[in-house]
C-alpha cells in the first residue's frame, strides 16, 4: 500500500513540476517567474524526500535541507533585486 501511495505522490509532484515549468516559460510578470521557481524548489524537496523513502536511505535529508536553504535565499535575492535594483546594499 505504501509503495502504491509513494508512486502516486511521486507522479503528483512530477506533474506539478511540469506545471511549474509551463508557468516559468509563459508568465505574465517577473514575480510569477520567481514564484514558479520557488514552487519548483518546494516540489523538488518533496521529490528528494519521496526518493529517500523509496530507497530507504537516510542521506537524502541533507540534500533536502540544503535545497530548502538555497531555494529560500535565491527567492529572497530575486525579489530583493526586483524591489531595489541590487541585492546587497
Amino acid at each position: 500500500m505504501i509503495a502504491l501511495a509513494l508512486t502516486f505522490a511521486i507522479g503528483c509532484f512530477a506533474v506539478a513540476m511540469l506545471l511549474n515549468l509551463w508557468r516559468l516559460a509563459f508568465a505574465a510578470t517577473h514575480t510569477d517567474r520567481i514564484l514558479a521557481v520557488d514552487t519548483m524548489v518546494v516540489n523538488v524537496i518533496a521529490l528528494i524526500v519521496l526518493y529517500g523513502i523509496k530507497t530507504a536511505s537516510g542521506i537524502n535529508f541533507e540534500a533536502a535541507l540544503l535545497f530548502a536553504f538555497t531555494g529560500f535565499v535565491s527567492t529572497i535575492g530575486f525579489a530583493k533585486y526586483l524591489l531595489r535594483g541590487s541585492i546587497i546594499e
Partner: protein
Amino acid sequence: MIGAGLDILIAALLVLGGVFGLVGSYGLLRLKGAMQRLHAPTKASTVGLGAVLMASAIGAGSTQEILVTLFIFLTAPLTALYLAKTLLHRHITPAELPTAAGGADWAAQSPAQPPVAQKD
C-alpha cells in the same frame, strides 16, 4: 495491528501530500490575478510538502524531517511577503489599495523610508 495502522497513516499522508502539491502548482496556472497566484503555493504546496515530510519522519522514525518542515513553514510567509512587495512595487498603484489606519503610507510605496529607530 499497529504496524498496519502506521502503514495506512503513512500512505494517507503521502497521498494527501501529492494532491496538495499538485493543487498548489495547478493554482499557480489557473488563478487569474497576480496577487491571487501568490496564495496557491504558499499554502497548498507548503502543506503538501509538510505531509510528505511527516510521512517520511514516521516511516523512517527520524527527527530530521521535522527540521525541514520547520524551516519550510517559517520561510514560506517570508517568501510570500517579499513577492507580494515586488507586486506592490511594480504593478499596483496606491489608488488600488485601501488606506491605512491613521492615513499613513504603506511601507513599500512610501517615497522615503526612514530607518526604524533601534531601541536599546
